[in-house]
């Protein structure tokens, strides 16, 4: 038997669920979206891919986290101490009640009671903090007396005959944990919906509607804290994707019918909740409810707020002094040479190498690049730079095409966890230097792309189709960039239209799983919605995957329209333009005619202009 003996090789790759509170507060960068969610008085549904920051935001809405953030952030202090923003975080991946709630013979009662038992525990942990916050500037509130009073009141309304008196919230929490054990045991040994059996086993909690106990608890806590009875409490519900359809429907019904004091902020993966109806109106959809806002949590990699957020994360994890700006620090670590500059340098270096055809190719591309002016330069130079770097990398043992801060930002694709993965890959490759060599960066970015591609086939039972789809998209666009004659280059592209409704079930599932894991990105719905496309929408390959195909797309146009019920191989249209989908996919549709959000396009344009100096950024 052998054991690991060198803990130093372990690099932290923190998951939002697992980061300890103190570290979380250090890593967290409050964004505009965070403040909006904290202040908003409506229910919200956050949709985002894995690692997009849903969990972090919900955790940071909880009182215990906000209290710590208040120590270092003036706005947080104001929201907590002046506006009394209190919150509870509750991940719904409660294995026992989610799993057993769908076993035949049980019913919604198991799910309702199970979630309530856990929600009460989460609420009790936060209410202690809330009382302390209020007591800090209200001399009439004594913490111990308030806790005792609240405990007594809660016991009266929640339980049927608690045998030994409970005097503190901590003791009440312990009692709830015992109740959870009893209820869980009852699930296996008898009918958990039978009240008599449960009472006999020692289960004392009165049944209530989903979140009914927490609603009562919040109202009582408000009274004890001398706030309005309906003063709002945020309930952050995470991981809705683990729920069954029936459970989601039940939750949707409760959320739509619940008003103050509970405000629900829920988070789930794309395509796991959007079409859920409610039990009181079969055709009503959650997304249509005016009191229920849906937000897509995906940053543009060129967004300055996102760059600062990720740079701060990077500095924190690499233990670097932020100095005047986190982004400047990260630029120093990664380097920030322009894509075109690097291509020129690489071309010069290649003069020393062999390979007449390659050399001719490079020389031709370099000459064309220098000959471009104005708008043409902005559009075509990146494509030529990619070609040069691709060709030169073949002659180098340590290719340096994928490197630089902007490239790192691009491959993170607006998803902070993809950037953290990249850091982890880098840490495996290098030994603690403050500057990461371009060769190491290239290796790490390529390794990450390869890893994402490889794991795609195993992510779900139909993974082979997902991997095949990605490969065809990647190869199709790569050939578009690398094989088009110089005089035919228009601009780089990585976008295509897919009508999910026209796909078969397994194909649609492949796209949806691809989205959840940031392998494919559904950019916009052609109906103009900023949510994930449901029918026809504009899609692209995830930037983190692109390096596998030697492609770092910049902005691009829509290359084709998928119209059939089957994914087809690349084909050429009459003009010889490479298209991904054929043979009916010859219509090339510019983005700005497809009715998407003009503000988004304007932002993309701004990004493109600013990237004239650095062709890698959007």
């Amino acid at each position, binding site marked *: 038997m052998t054991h*690991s003996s060198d803990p130093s090789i372990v690099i932290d790759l*923190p998951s939002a669920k*697992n980061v300890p509170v103190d570290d979380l507060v250090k890593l967290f960068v409050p964004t505009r979206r965070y403040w909006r969610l904290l202040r908003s008085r409506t229910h919200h549904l956050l949709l985002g891919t894995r690692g997009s920051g849903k969990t972090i935001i919900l955790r940071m809405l909880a009182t215990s986290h906000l209290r710590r953030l208040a120590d270092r952030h003036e706005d947080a202090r104001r929201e907590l101490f002046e506006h009394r923003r209190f919150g509870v975080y509750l991940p719904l991946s409660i294995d026992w009640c989610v799993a057993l709630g769908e076993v035949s013979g049980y019913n919604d009662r198991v799910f309702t009671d199970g979630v309530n038992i856990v929600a009460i525990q989460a609420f009790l942990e936060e209410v202690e903090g809330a009382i302390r916050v209020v007591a800090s500037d209200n001399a009439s509130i004594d913490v111990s007396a308030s806790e005792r009073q609240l405990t007594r009141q809660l016991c009266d309304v929640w339980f049927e005959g608690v045998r030994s008196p409970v005097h503190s919230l901590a003791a009440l929490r312990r009692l709830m944990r015992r109740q959870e054990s009893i209820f869980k045991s009852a699930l296996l040994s008898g009918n958990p919906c039978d009240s008599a059996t449960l009472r006999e086993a020692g289960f004392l909690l009165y049944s209530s509607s989903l979140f009914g106990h927490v609603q009562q608890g919040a109202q009582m806590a408000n009274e004890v804290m001398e706030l309005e009875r309906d003063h709002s409490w945020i309930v952050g519900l995470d991981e809705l994707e683990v729920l069954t359809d029936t459970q989601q429907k039940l939750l949707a019904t409760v959320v739509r019918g619940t008003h103050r004091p509970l405000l629900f902020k829920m988070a789930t993966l794309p395509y796991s909740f959007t079409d859920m109806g409610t039990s009181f109106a079969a055709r009503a959809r959650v997304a249509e409810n005016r009191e229920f806002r849906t937000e897509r949590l995906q940053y543009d990699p060129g967004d300055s707020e996102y760059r600062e957020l990720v740079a701060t994360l990077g500095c924190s994890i690499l233990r670097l002094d932020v100095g005047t700006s986190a982004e400047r620090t990260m630029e120093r670590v990664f380097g920030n040479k322009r894509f075109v500059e690097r291509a020129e340098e690489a071309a010069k270096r290649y003069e020393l190498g062999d390979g007449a055809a390659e050399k001719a190719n490079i020389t031709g591309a370099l000459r064309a690049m220098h000959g471009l002016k104005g708008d043409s330069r902005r559009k075509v130079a990146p494509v030529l730079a990619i070609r040069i770097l691709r060709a030169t990398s073949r002659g180098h043992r340590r290719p340096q095409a994928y490197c630089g801060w902007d490239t790192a930002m691009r491959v993170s694709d607006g998803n902070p966890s993809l950037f953290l993965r990249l850091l982890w890959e880098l840490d*495996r490759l290098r030994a603690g230097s403050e500057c990461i060599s371009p060769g190491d960066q290239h290796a790490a970015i390529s390794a990450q792309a390869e890893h994402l591609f490889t794991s795609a086939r*195993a*992510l779900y039972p139909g993974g082979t189709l997902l991997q095949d789809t990605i490969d065809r998209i990647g190869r199709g666009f790569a050939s578009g960039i690398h094989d088009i004659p110089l005089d035919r280059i228009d601009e780089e592209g990585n976008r295509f239209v897919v009508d999910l409704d026209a796909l078969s079930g397994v194909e649609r599932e492949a796209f949806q799983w691809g989205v959840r894991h940031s392998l494919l990105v559904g950019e916009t719905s052609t109906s103009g919605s900023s949510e994930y496309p449901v029918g026809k929408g504009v899609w692209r390959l995830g930037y983190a995957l692109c390096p596998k195909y030697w492609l770092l797309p910049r902005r691009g146009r829509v290359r084709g329209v998928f119209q059939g019920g089957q994914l087809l191989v690349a084909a050429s249209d009459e003009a010889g333009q490479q298209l991904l989908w054929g043979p009916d996919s010859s219509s090339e549709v510019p983005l700005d005619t497809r009715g998407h959000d003009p503000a988004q396009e304007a932002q993309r344009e701004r990004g493109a202009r600013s990237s004239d100096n650095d062709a890698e950024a959007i």
Partner: protein
Amino acid sequence: MGSTSNSRLSVRRVEWCDLESRAVDLIVAAAGYELRGPHVCEELARRQDGHRVLGSKLYLAQFKDRRNEDYRGEVDRRFAEFEPRWLHETDGTDGHDLVRRVTDIVRAGHRGSASATVLIDYSCMTRMMYLPLLRLLRSGITLLFAYSVGYHPPGGEHRYPVSTVGRIGSVPGLEGLALPRRRRLYVFGLGYDDVGNAALVERLEADEFVCYWASPGYAGYWNVPDPGDHVESINHAIIERARYWFAAAWDDVPTVFRELSKISNEVAGSRKVVIVPVGPKPHILAAGLAAEPHGHVAVLAPHLGGGGIRGEVPRVEAAGPVALQEVCTGARLSSGCVA
């Protein structure tokens, strides 16, 4: 390595000679499509009182699917010779139901069920069936677990494609408490498919984990090179990220149980431990045993879809060896020849 115990459970490895003179009150087995299914019962009947007597205390869970397969017909015919007293059709996921039925039978047959001994042949059971049965330990019942190693015919490797991670369920009775604010420490029992294992890590978003695997594996009983013997090199990238790892022989339940219990106890106040076993069944059993006494430990059962059998069912017969474990509460291990 022969036996180990924690404050609640004692686990030890036993041999056939222990069972020859041992009264077993109930035998729970499963009839699937693997020919090794009846092997343990047949061996026990040969060593003890014959088919009829054994059949009078045999509870047989019959899988509903593949009833028309040739192999399945042979398995059913061999089990029919025992004339099992209790038959129960199962889809392999109703462990909670199985626990209730078995508990009722034990209670009905034993006025003082504390002295009962139940033998569970889990060779052909899903983990959703045999792990919930650990709950019987809470009634003071002694459990004997028997696992008959399968012989895989040569040339069948192509039937085992890369795993794909399907639904990740939790094992009834071993879900642990919710503990929503606690950090999760994952413990992966690695199989020999690195892509599938990596996808599992990915799906669970496990950032802090421990690994264990079987070494040596089944190699001695297979007619093909056993990938289980190279799990470490196959899963190199995953192991490199692990906080801690260990390996134990495929049938060394006491060691795996002890290691997992140690890990669980060390983090009892700060983490929720989530064990995700993929490796050999005796290691999965050890995971269940380690989780059973603790509220902060859970066992997940990922459905590795594509890792199953592609196309024709291979003829998995009994290779011969049977791994036997005795589990009871406290330190009430019976005397006998301890391995």
